[in-house]
């Protein structure tokens, strides 16, 4: 399988810090996989994804050792345009990424940088707006809409550029529950389309886990665990020790297993529906 991203012993220390934020990352992310990134705060999640989109080392000062390759080209040697063409980045604070005066302009900005013509820009804007349900916001100021709408606009900006890799850094951290559902609906659609490598840093594992092909745990600047999602959550105690919770349905079924109410061989559920179904089948068997 083709690797979209390859980390080779990447180490990174921010300027004026004594410790390395990344302490030797070796990682391969397969094209079109959906990766969920979890971990406690200050353990290197954002730094890891910043190293993929090139903010590290191009926008921050520090010590950079090892390499990251995106589709075979080193991030260190790529410029902003090359990187933006391959990697889209959605920041946790949507307002922090707005630079234009209307939503439409905001969406057009990246496409103009990529050198598209008017007709193509229009087509891409319409598609991204439709995918993220922001068609009626195009004429508005991006500062004059709700938090959830802002985040959808931020996602639309990245989608419009249609990069093969899309990174979202805690995209739901600043929005209400309904807004969160909409963001995960968009992620679900993107996953279904299967045309993008998606890397999502997120604390909301209840909604992230059912979507992710693989989960990655960052701990003390290292990739502590990188496994297919079910396998990743097979040891909740281990994750808890590292400040990460498993989805509640997974924990519930694991508790039933520990109480010998269910066989250990059972497929761990990752969402509520899966949890109910697993429990129902187990009860039937009894």
């Amino acid at each position: 399988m083709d690797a979209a991203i390859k980390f080779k012993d990447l180490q990174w220390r921010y300027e004026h810090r004594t410790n390395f934020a990344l302490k030797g990352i070796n990682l391969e992310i397969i094209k079109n996989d959906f990766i969920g990134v979890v971990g406690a705060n200050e353990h290197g999640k954002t730094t890891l994804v910043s190293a993929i989109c090139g903010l590290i080392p191009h926008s921050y000062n520090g010590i950079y050792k090892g390499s990251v390759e995106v589709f075979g080209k080193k991030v260190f040697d790529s410029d902003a345009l090359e990187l933006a063409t391959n990697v889209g980045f959605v920041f946790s604070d949507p307002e922090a990424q707005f630079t234009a005066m209307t939503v439409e302009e905001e969406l057009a900005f990246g496409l103009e940088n990529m050198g598209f013509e008017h007709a193509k820009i229009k087509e891409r804007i319409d598609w991204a707006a439709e995918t993220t349900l922001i068609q009626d916001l195009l004429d508005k100021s991006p500062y004059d809409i709700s938090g959830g709408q802002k985040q959808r606009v931020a996602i639309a900006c990245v989608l419009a550029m249609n990069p093969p890799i899309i990174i979202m850094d805690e995209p739901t951290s600043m929005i209400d529950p309904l807004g969160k559902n909409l963001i995960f609906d968009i992620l679900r659609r993107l996953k279904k389309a299967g045309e993008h490598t998606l890397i999502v840093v997120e604390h909301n594992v209840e909604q992230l886990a059912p979507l992710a092909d693989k989960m990655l745990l960052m701990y003390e600047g290292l990739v502590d665990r990188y496994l297919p999602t079910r396998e990743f959550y097979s040891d909740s105690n281990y994750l808890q020790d590292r400040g990460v919770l498993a989805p509640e349905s997974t924990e519930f079924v694991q508790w039933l297993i520990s109480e010998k109410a269910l066989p250990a061989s059972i497929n761990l559920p990752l969402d509520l529906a899966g949890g109910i179904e697993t429990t129902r089948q187990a009860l039937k068997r009894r």
Partner: protein
Amino acid sequence: MNTETTLTASPERAAKSRKTLLGYVPMVSPFYAFHPATRLILFIFLGVTPLFIFIPEMNILLLFVNLALLRWGKVDIQQLKIYMPIIFTVAIFMFTVVILAPGKDPNYTPLEVLGKTIYYQPVFFTFAAYWRLIAMLFGTILFFSTNRERELLVGLRALRLPFVASYVVGLSIRAAGMFMEDFRTIREAEQARGLDTKAMRFSDQVKLYMMYLIPLFSIALRRANEISNALFARGYTLTGRTSTGKPREDYIRSTYSYSKRDFVAIAFMIIIFVVTGLTQIFFNVFAIEHSPLNIFLRQALGIPS
């Protein structure tokens, strides 16, 4: 194109005004039928023309033209109240300076007013300069009350300002709006913790405002860093180069087009501007000496011209 176009994307939102970073613009206005470049030229015209006119009555007339345009543009005149403190502060400042420090000139005519000696010439000159400033201020108010930031940028680009420069203008406007928003947030946070500025002495209020600068500047620095990261993430380079090497398309500008009325309006403004400028430069028609009020006062006070 219709004489009136609407800016609303969702007609169900029937609010009369739309918030911009610097204030409000009407949802519907006859100004929107004009290309942003025409509106920007109107702004330049109304801002620069008073510089040729030293007759205060003419600048007051220009002020009324601005007010008429504001009304025609469906701007809520009530919202102009927020500019009253500026109008009065400028007047107080200018007249205080000229009364306390009029300068020395043997040709000045002293007048006794309420036991204080003032000089006619500098006071009338200040009066003329004040109305010139106010006429220019209302030209600016008209522009920002009928144009969103987007239209300003399109106008600038249409007048061939480089993309990078227009972008810096846009970011500056954005920064100003966010600065005000952060300022409001900090004040509200203080009020929520029981701070009553009304009960404070003036000197303490000044100190408090100075203290606001520290968090405001640190927030501004953080935001500058965030915007820089956002520009990088979307492939923007200061050279304005595109990934294909072709010149950068200006999508938003392409959504506006010129009509006949734009050319007529621009031609009209250029003619008026050139005629005003030339008559002043060559014939000094708009000199302060030709002000009817000035002539009347000199005659009434017996001041030789």
